[in-house]
């Protein structure tokens, strides 16, 4: 044959064709091919392939089934009956599997709900793909620091200058204010926004037109809920007047659907930024950086090139005067999960926790699956005869495998039902811990995932026994010559080691998170946050403040009272307008500004290192300045007290240096800071309250506030609570991971328990003989536990380095963190070892105490 026919067609024919026809058909086809080849090679090739294809019909297709069971239903029933019989017969194994799998599945489902909720935040906007937040990086002391706010004119300028920007909006000052209608006062959260706000974000309007509602500076757009609360109706709200305390009257121009829970922006009403801008001059300056800016880009716009264009936007706008601020955009829906930037590099954010918990879910499920695998392989030795007989009478490997898979899938399904029950019971407490409002709604997604996880669990859990058991040679099994000890034991021990490795990693993780959170909460911050009540100063008249403070001081429960222009929980206001001798002219470091009143430093118990604090006995203290140590170090002053610096163009004498204190979260390093006496700019009142008298004191303060400011509600918070809120995420993670680690340990130990019981049972005769020959119960317990001890020890050796590195990486998120102690890890190992001994010990002691007569009877 000169040119052979197409190989694939040929191979295909050989694959499907029945053997008794193959030779004839092949021969005929080749003969035809040979003849046609002389006329036209291409046609012959085509014809050959076509003929092969046309032979693909029932008459010529070989039967691929070696053995065809005549009744599938009977087999299914048989499998089910066997499954349920084995449940009954091995009750403890079944229970262990059920508890393990159902708690594992419940954990996985809860975590899935949480992760899904986290991932959905801010993704509901129709323009999601085009919405971006404008961020700024500033160079400070050689490092890039991220700011989420920009200069107020940015939004407008970007929209005007860049063709990619279809809409841009400013969002400013979301805070609570008091709205009143006909003597009715309601506290609500609002923000000033640009005209395009409703056209960009999908906060759908039920009344009013998105393009129009914000054009009039004196209009207000309110949520449905707020409309209901203010007017008792949503339909007739438009056109009505609302008075905003400390401000103006606004006319309702629209009503929007309540802001969904999965939005990171939460507000009850919005006001046009244009109105605010008209009354506040600073909003035209590029040097100030206050509102947040959001833009919507044209579909398909390239982010990298857009970022390139806006990088030097501020410099260009200010003709080179402000050159140390560079802008870039981040996807709006990414802000929630990826909020951290470290020196210009994206460095995670909440996504870290999302990933952490996804891993936890996988780990826990894996541990549960391993239990199942181990217990069923262990048990399998007792089912060897069954398998041997079945194979000998012609059962195929597949049908045997399906028997084990159906068993594991049924256990998984029953566990799923239990897990669903557990989840619906646990959800309220889970919500409390996570601070979310998750619901267990049966949407398609959830059902698919639940079924997916269950099938996956069932298949993974059943895979090993199914593949392993069905592969034996029946002759070997029936002759009882199977040498199963080595491979089987290695696998089983390997799985136990893996299980414990995972558990130890989880425990150390929990311990480290817990320690860090405790550390954060107990670290001395450099000031005293206990029993300090904070509330907003409600009038900006200076005389009024003095009178109020004077009256408040007389309340017996109030030990000290003062006012301060800082929240002590984060960056408040900073300035670059500080000059000192020896300053590098290109230095753009921002100093944090604390505006204080007399007595503020004393109230917060901020320690003085040198000099003095502000005092009413000096009349000129408003022109003085106090620095923290970090600032003095940064400026490089050796003998600061008495020296002069220039702030905003005025000379100020340094009168004191205070010890460093944390005015931001511990994620941040302590930055340079100064304190100036400026009672008029202090927007918070701080009161130190005698412990044990909180109730009465707050009541009296509230009455005083009502007397001075009858129009305002008295809202207060405790400084330590506020401080703790900074670490809410960490704290939640700490609590959650504690539970999850507990569950992981529980599941691991359940497996170990089952395995120990099995081993003890299998070695019953050995134990009997040993006892008959005079072994003591202790030596037998030792004999039985030593295997498990070895496994746990191996697991510890593997787990410790892994968890050490994981912990180290996590702690790098914090500027101030615990140092890892060796005993954290050894402690986790010892704990696991103890739990394992306890679990195994129970079984082995039982075995060791058994009467040898009973187990040796039948020999």
């Amino acid at each position, binding site marked *: *044959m000169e040119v052979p026919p197409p190989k694939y067609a040929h191979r295909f024919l050989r694959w499907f064709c029945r053997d008794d*026809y193959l*030779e*004839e*058909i*092949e*021969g*005929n*086809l*080749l*003969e*035809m091919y*040979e*003849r046609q080849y002389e006329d036209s090679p291409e046609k012959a090739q085509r014809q050959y392939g076509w*003929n092969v294809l*046309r*032979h693909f*019909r029932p*008459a*010529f297709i070989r039967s691929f089934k070696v053995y065809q069971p005549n009744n599938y239903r009977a087999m299914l029933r048989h499998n089910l009956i066997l499954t349920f019989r084995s449940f009954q017969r091995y009750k403890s194994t079944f229970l262990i599997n059920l508890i393990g799998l159902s708690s594992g599945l419940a954990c996985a489902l809860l975590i899935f709900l949480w992760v899904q909720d986290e991932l959905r935040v801010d993704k509901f906007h129709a323009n999601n793909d085009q919405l971006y937040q404008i961020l700024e990086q500033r160079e400070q002391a050689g490092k890039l620091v991220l700011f989420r706010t920009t200069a107020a004119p940015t939004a407008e300028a970007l929209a005007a200058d860049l063709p990619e920007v279809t809409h841009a909006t400013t969002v400013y000052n979301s805070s609570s204010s008091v709205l009143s209608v006909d003597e009715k006062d309601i506290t609500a959260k609002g923000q000033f926004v640009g005209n395009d706000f409703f056209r960009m974000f999908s906060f759908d309007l039920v009344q009013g037109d998105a393009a129009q509602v914000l054009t009039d500076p004196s209009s207000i757009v309110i949520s449905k809920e707020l409309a209901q609360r203010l007017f008792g109706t949503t339909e007739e709200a438009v056109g009505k007047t609302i008075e905003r305390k400390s401000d103006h009257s606004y006319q309702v121009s629209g009503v929007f659907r309540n802001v969904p829970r999965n939005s990171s922006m939460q507000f009850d009403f919005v006001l046009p930024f244009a109105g605010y801008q008209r009354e506040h001059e600073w909003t035209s300056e590029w040097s100030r950086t206050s509102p947040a800016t959001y833009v919507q880009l044209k579909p398909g716009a390239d982010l990298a090139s857009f970022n390139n264009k806006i990088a030097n936007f501020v410099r260009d706008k200010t003709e080179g005067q402000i050159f140390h601020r560079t802008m870039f955009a981040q996807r709006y829906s990414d802000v929630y999960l990826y909020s951290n930037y470290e020196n210009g590099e994206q460095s995670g954010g909440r996504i870290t926790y999302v990933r952490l918990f996804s891993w936890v879910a996988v780990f826990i499920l894996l541990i549960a699956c391993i239990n199942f695998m181990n217990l069923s392989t262990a048990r399998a030795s007792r089912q060897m005869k069954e398998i041997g007989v079945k194979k000998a009478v012609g059962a195929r490997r597949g049908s045997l495998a399906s028997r084990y898979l159906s068993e594991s899938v049924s256990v998984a399904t029953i566990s799923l039902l239990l897990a669903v029950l557990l989840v619906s019971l646990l959800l309220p407490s889970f919500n409390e811990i996570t601070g979310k409002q998750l619901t267990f709604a049966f949407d398609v997604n959830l059902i698919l995932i639940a079924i997916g996880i269950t099938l996956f669990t069932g298949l993974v859990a059943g895979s090993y026994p199914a593949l392993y058991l069905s592969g034996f040679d029946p002759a070997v099994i029936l002759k009882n010559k199977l040498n199963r000890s080595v491979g089987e034991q290695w696998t089983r021990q390997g799985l136990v080691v893996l299980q414990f490795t995972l558990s130890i990693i989880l425990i150390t993780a929990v311990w480290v998170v817990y320690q860090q959170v405790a550390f954060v909460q107990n670290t001395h911050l450099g000031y005293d946050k206990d029993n300090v009540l904070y509330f907003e100063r409600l009038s900006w008249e200076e005389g009024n403040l003095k009178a109020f403070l004077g009256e408040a001081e007389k309340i017996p429960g109030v030990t000290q009272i003062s006012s301060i222009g800082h929240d002590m929980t984060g960056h408040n206001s900073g300035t670059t307008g500080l000059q000192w001798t020896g300053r590098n002219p290109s230095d753009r470091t921002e100093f944090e500004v604390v505006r204080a009143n007399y007595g503020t430093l004393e109230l917060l118990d901020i320690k003085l290192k040198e000099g003095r604090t502000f005092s009413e006995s000096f009349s000129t203290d408003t022109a003085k300045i106090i620095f923290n140590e970090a600032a003095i170090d940064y400026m490089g002053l050796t003998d600061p007290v008495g020296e002069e610096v220039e702030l905003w163009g005025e000379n100020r004498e340094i009168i004191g240096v205070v010890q460093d204190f944390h005015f931001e979260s511990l994620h941040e390093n302590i930055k340079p800071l100064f304190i100036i006496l400026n009672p008029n700019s202090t927007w918070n009142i701080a009161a130190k309250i005698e412990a044990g008298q909180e109730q009465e004191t707050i009541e009296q303060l509230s009455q005083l506030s009502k007397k001075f400011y009858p129009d305002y509600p008295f809202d207060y918070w405790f400084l330590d609570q506020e401080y703790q809120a900074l670490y809410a995420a960490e704290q939640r993670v700490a609590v959650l991971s504690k539970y999850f680690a507990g569950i992981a340990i529980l599941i691991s130990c359940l497996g170990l328990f089952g395995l120990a019981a099995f081993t003890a049972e299998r070695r019953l005769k050995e134990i009997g003989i040993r006892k008959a020959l005079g072994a003591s119960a202790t030596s037998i317990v030792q004999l039985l536990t030593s295997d498990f001890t070895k496994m746990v020890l191996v697991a510890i050796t593997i787990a410790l380095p892994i968890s050490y590195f994981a912990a180290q990486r996590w702690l790098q998120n914090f500027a101030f963190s615990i140092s890892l102690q060796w005993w954290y890890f050894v402690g986790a190992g010892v704990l696991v070892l103890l739990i394992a001994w306890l679990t195994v010990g129970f079984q082995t002691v039982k075995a060791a105490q058994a009467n040898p007569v009973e187990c040796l009877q039948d020999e």
Partner: protein
Amino acid sequence: MIPNLGQLEESVLLLVMIVEEAYGVSVAQAYEEKTDNTISIPAIHTVLKRLEKKGMLRSWMGKATAERGGRRKRLFEATPYGYQVISQLRENRIKLWSLIPKFN
């Protein structure tokens, strides 16, 4: 009682009787020559197989030739039952033909 035989089956059965060394390719060739129709080899194979199953043909493996790449032929031959069926068919046809009323 004559078994049901399709038109193609009938033709192939006849061709097996006619052709000297009847096997898939030779039958297909004869079919194309004698009826002026083309036919695919899978169709021939199917029909041959069906006829064999009905007992009208029998087959055996013949010799290998070079042009078949070393594969043997399956040779066919009509069984006595096959001859019987075909002649009965013919008789039936003639009977029916004779029943057609003459118009001229």
